[in-house]
C-alpha cells in the first residue's frame, strides 16, 4: 500500500472517530426539532451524558464489575438518563409552562455544562485525584467489536469493520429514525406537530405527548454523544475543555443535514474530518486555528443557501422554536 493511500485511510478513520459523537448529538437534536422544539441545551446535555456515562463505567469497575458489555450498556443507559433529565427540565418549562425555547435552552446549556463539570470534578476529588478505568475496559469502548480476521482485510477491513461499536449503533439508530420519521404513522404525526401543531391537534394528535417524548428521547440520544466522546476520543478521562463546543457543532450539523437523519451519517463524518484536518493536512497558507472554524463557516453557507433557494423540503420545521398554546389557536 502506498504511503499516500495509507494517509487517506488514517484520515478517514480519524474523521469517523471524531464524527461519531456528533452523529448522536445531531440525531437527538433532529428528533427534538422535528417536533418543533429548538433545544439549544445540547451542549449541556452532552456534558451531563459524558460525565454520567464515565461515572457509570468507572463505578461499575470500582464495584468489581468486569463484563465489558455490561459496562458499555450501563454507560449508554446513564448517559441517556443524564440527557433525558436535562431535556425533561427543558420540556417541562417550554411545553407545560410555556417559557421561551431559546432562553430555556441556553439556561439548560449553562446548567448542564455546570452539572457535567461538577460530576466530573466530584469524581476526581473523591477518587483521590484521578478517574481512570482499566485499559481492558478502555479497549472495549474504543476498539471494533468485529473479529480480527475481518479487520485485517486490506483497506476494507479497517474501513468497514475497524470502528468502535458506537458507530454501528449510531448507524442502526439513524436508519431506525429515518424509517420512523418517514415511514411510520407516529413519525408522520410527530412531523405534523413540528410543522403545524394546531393542525395536528385538530387531527387528534396529542401534541403535548409527542413534544415531550421527542424532546426527552432526543435529549437522551444527544447525551450519548457526550459519553462516546469521553470514552473514545478523550480515552475515558473527564476532559471538559475537549468536550466543549461539541454540542454547538451538533446544533450546526442539524442545519447542515437539513433535518434529515440519513444526511447526519456523512455530515458528521465530514465535520469530524473538518475538525481534525489541521492535524493531518498541513497547508502552509491556512493556519490551524482558521481550519478549525471551517465547520461553522460551512454551516453558515448552507444556512444562507437554503434560505436563498427557498425550496419547501429543505426548510426548518415550520413551527420550530414557537410555543403552542391550544387556547390561543
Amino acid at each position, binding site marked *: 500500500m502506498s504511503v499516500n493511500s495509507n494517509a487517506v485511510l488514517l484520515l478517514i478513520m480519524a474523521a469517523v472517530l471524531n464524527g461519531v459523537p456528533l452523529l448522536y448529538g445531531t440525531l437527538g437534536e433532529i428528533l427534538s426539532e422535528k417536533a418543533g422544539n429548538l433545544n439549544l441545551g445540547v451542549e449541556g446535555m452532552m456534558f451531563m451524558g459524558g460525565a454520567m456515562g464515565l461515572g457509570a463505567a468507572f463505578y461499575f469497575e470500582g464495584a468489581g464489575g468486569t463484563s465489558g458489555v455490561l459496562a458499555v450498556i450501563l454507560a449508554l443507559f446513564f448517559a441517556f438518563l443524564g440527557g433525558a433529565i436535562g431535556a425533561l427540565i427543558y420540556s417541562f418549562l417550554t411545553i*407545560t409552562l410555556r417559557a421561551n425555547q431559546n432562553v430555556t435552552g441556553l439556561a439548560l446549556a449553562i446548567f448542564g455544562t455546570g452539572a457535567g463539570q461538577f460530576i466530573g470534578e466530584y469524581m476526581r476529588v473523591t477518587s483521590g485525584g484521578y478517574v481512570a478505568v482499566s485499559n481492558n475496559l478502555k479497549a472495549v469502548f474504543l476498539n471494533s467489536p468485529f473479529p480480527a480476521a475481518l479487520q485485517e482485510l486490506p483497506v476494507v477491513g479497517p474501513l468497514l469493520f475497524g470502528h468502535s461499536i458506537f458507530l454501528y449503533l449510531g448507524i442502526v439508530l439513524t436508519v431506525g429514525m429515518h424509517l420512523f420519521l418517514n415511514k411510520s404513522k407516529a413519525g408522520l404525526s410527530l412531523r405534523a406537530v413540528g410543522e403545524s401543531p394546531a393542525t395536528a391537534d385538530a387531527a387528534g394528535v396529542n401534541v403535548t405527548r409527542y413534544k415531550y417524548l421527542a424532546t426527552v428521547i432526543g435529549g437522551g440520544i444527544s447525551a450519548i454523544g457526550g459519553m462516546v466522546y469521553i470514552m473514545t476520543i478523550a480515552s475515558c478521562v473527564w476532559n471538559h475543555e475537549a468536550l466543549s463546543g461539541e454540542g454547538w457543532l451538533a446544533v*450546526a450539523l442539524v442545519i447542515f443535514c437539513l433535518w434529515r437523519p440519513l444526511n447526519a451519517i456523512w455530515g458528521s463524518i465530514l465535520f469530524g474530518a473538518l475538525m481534525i484536518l489541521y492535524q493531518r493536512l498541513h497547508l502552509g497558507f491556512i493556519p490551524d*486555528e482558521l481550519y478549525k472554524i471551517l465547520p461553522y463557516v460551512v454551516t453558515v453557507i448552507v444556512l444562507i443557501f437554503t434560505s436563498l433557494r427557498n425550496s419547501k423540503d429543505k426548510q426548518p420545521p415550520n413551527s420550530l422554536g414557537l410555543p403552542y398554546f391550544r387556547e390561543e389557536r
Partner: protein
Amino acid sequence: MHESHTPLIRLAKRDGMPKGQVWAIRGASFLAAILISALIFLLMGHNPFGAFGTMVGGSLGKPTAIRQTVKIAVPLLGTALAIAPCFKMRFWNIGAEGQITAGAVGASYFALFWADKLPGPMLLVVMAVAGAICGGLWALVPAFFKAKWGTNETLFTLMMNYIMIGVVKWLQGGPWEGRPGSQIIPQFDSAAVLPKVLGVHCGWIIVLILTVAMFFYMKYTKQGYEIAVIGESENTARYAGMNVGRIIMRTMFLSGAIAGLVGFIVASGADNTLYSGVAAGVGFTAITVAWLAQLNPFAMVGISVLLAVLDKGADTLQTQLSVPASISDIITGIFLFCMLGCEFFINYRLILRGGHKEVAES
C-alpha cells in the same frame, strides 16, 4: 359538553394581575430556587446555611469582594442591554458572545499598535469606537441575510460566535502573538487600560449610563417604537409603511455595537489583553438576564447583580469549602429555571374541572 371531556386542569390567559401578587409569585420562585440549591448543598454534606452565608459573605462581605462582584456584573448588564432591542423585535440574536469578541478585537488592535501614536484619553476613545463598530459590523452580517432572504437568525448568529472566537485563537497564536510560542497576546500599554473609579474599572459607569439611555431609547424614541411594532407584528409594521429590513439591520448594528463596547470594556478594563475567552459565556448568560428582566433595563441591573453574586459566591465556596466552582453554573441554572417557570403562573390561570361555569366555546 360532557363534563368528562373537559380536562382536569384548563388554562386561561390572565392579564392585569395585581402588582403585589406578581411579586409574591416571583418571590416564591426565588425561594424555591434557594430551597433546591440548599438541597444540593445538603446532598453534598454541607450545611446549607453555612454555604449560603459563605456565598453572600464572599460576594458582598468586604469592599474588595463587592468590587469583584461588580466587575462580574458589568459585562452581564452591558450585554443584556445590547440584546434587549433585538429581542423586543423578536429577532433572536444569540450571537452576543461573538459580537463581544469582535469588539474586543477592534479595541485591541488600537491598544496594541497605536498606543504610542495616540494621546491617552484619545486612545481609549478610539478603542471604544473601534470596538463598537467591529461588534456592530459583525452583527450586521446575519441581520443583512435575515432582512434580505429571511435566513434563520438564531442559528446564524450562533455560528458567528464560534467563527469569531476561532479568529481570536488564530490571532493569539499567529500575527498578534507576544513571545513566540506563548500563544498569548501581550498585555496592553497602561494608556490603553480603563481608569479605575472607586476601585473598579470605569466600565460600570458606562453601563449605568447605557441603562438609562436604553430605557429612553426603547420607551420614548421613534426608533424604539418601530422596534416594538415589528416585535408585535411584522405585517402591521409593513402596512404602516416601515422599512422592516432596514430597521432590522439598524437595530442589529446597534445591538452588536453595544456588545462590542462591552468587549472593549472587558478587554481594556478587566483583562488588559485579548484572549479567546474574552466573552466567557457572558453572551449567553446575558440573554437570560435580558429575558428575565422582561427587557426592562432597570430590572436588568438587579438580575445581573444577582447572577454576579451567585458567581462570585460560588468562587468563594470553592476556595473555602473546596466545592467545585462549577457549582455556580448549577445554581445559576436552577435560579434561571425557577424564574423562567414562574412567569407562567403570572400569565396564566389554572381552572380546575367543575370549578367554574363553562364559558361557551366556539
